[in-house]
């Protein structure tokens, strides 16, 4: 048996498995009660560490994480944008092709009729604006209470 005791790192390796040690150290360990005692100390210590209760949070981590996740951004309305572009294209095409015919039609209209049409259009736009405002207020109220 060698008179040199095992180093601390060798003792730790022996505590995990003696197969990790060179043969000379295994031979020493077999005949040395002191090294055996120290290996046993490490074995007991590490077994105890492995059986320590795992730490836990006092709250539901999963629920709190899900509540903190950033909201997904709404997808870009590709279909709606496509339809709008198509409609705009058709209008532009019609105006390009038949725009010249519309000028004399508007010129022939009486001034009173023009003023009437403008007034109706103005009322329509104002009504739409009020509707939008009312809808916005409703949404804001819902957000405040939710």
């Amino acid at each position: 048996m060698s008179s040199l005791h095992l180093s601390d790192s060798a003792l730790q390796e022996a505590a995990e498995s003696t197969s990790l040690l060179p043969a000379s150290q295994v031979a020493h360990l077999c005949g040395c009660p002191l090294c055996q005692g120290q290996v046993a100390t490490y074995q007991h210590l590490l077994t105890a560490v492995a059986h320590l209760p795992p730490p836990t949070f006092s709250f539901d981590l999963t629920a709190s994480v899900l509540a903190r996740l950033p909201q997904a951004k709404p997808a870009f309305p590709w279909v709606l944008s496509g339809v709008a572009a198509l409609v705009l294209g058709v209008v532009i095409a019609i105006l390009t092709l038949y725009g010249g015919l519309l000028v004399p039609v508007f010129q022939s209209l009486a001034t009173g009729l023009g003023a009437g049409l403008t007034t109706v259009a103005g009322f329509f736009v104002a009504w739409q604006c009020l509707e939008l405002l009312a809808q916005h207020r409703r949404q804001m109220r819902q957000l405040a209470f939710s």
Partner: protein
Amino acid sequence: MSNLSTSPATDQQLVAQVLGGNTASFGQLVQRTQGLVTQIVFKMIRHPADRPDVAQDVYVKVFKNLAGFKLQAKFSTWVGQITYNTCLHYLEKKQLVLVDPAEPELDTASEYGRRAPPLVAGTDYDPETALFSQNLAGILGSAIEQLPPLYRTLISLYHQQELSYEEIAQITSLPDGTVKNYLFRARKQLKQYLLITYQRDDL
């Protein structure tokens, strides 16, 4: 056949579901990895009040970077990496020391062959009765708390989470050899602390 239909989704499948917009699947990923995350956060962050925020920050980062996760990799290791880096950032912000640089390296090669000092005086020392006689969990818990954050983390990852040296090396971005060396030093410090602090009769 029924086993196939009821078998739980793999981590990779859950990741794909979350990326497809199913946020609820992320809850399953959290449940699967929270043991590891909690372990790292508790060992790296000493201040209990900061731990919940750090743990939640970890998962928000995981969620935001999920598209960057390589499906071939192990999900828990990737989450462990993010957890470790988040804790490291916290320690840097608080200017806390991860491991004492003044402590000498444990040179396993040179240490081999050195005459090892006896753990305690006397030859009739019985470590089994000493270590298991009283409130071992409490004593061990407080002893581990005395170690530097990195040592505490390595001990819990290796001995409690049962991760391999390679997995710990991936999580901490340390070379395998360094992980092994630090673990040796951590265990040695732990044992010495226990032996110095708690006399044989106290144990």
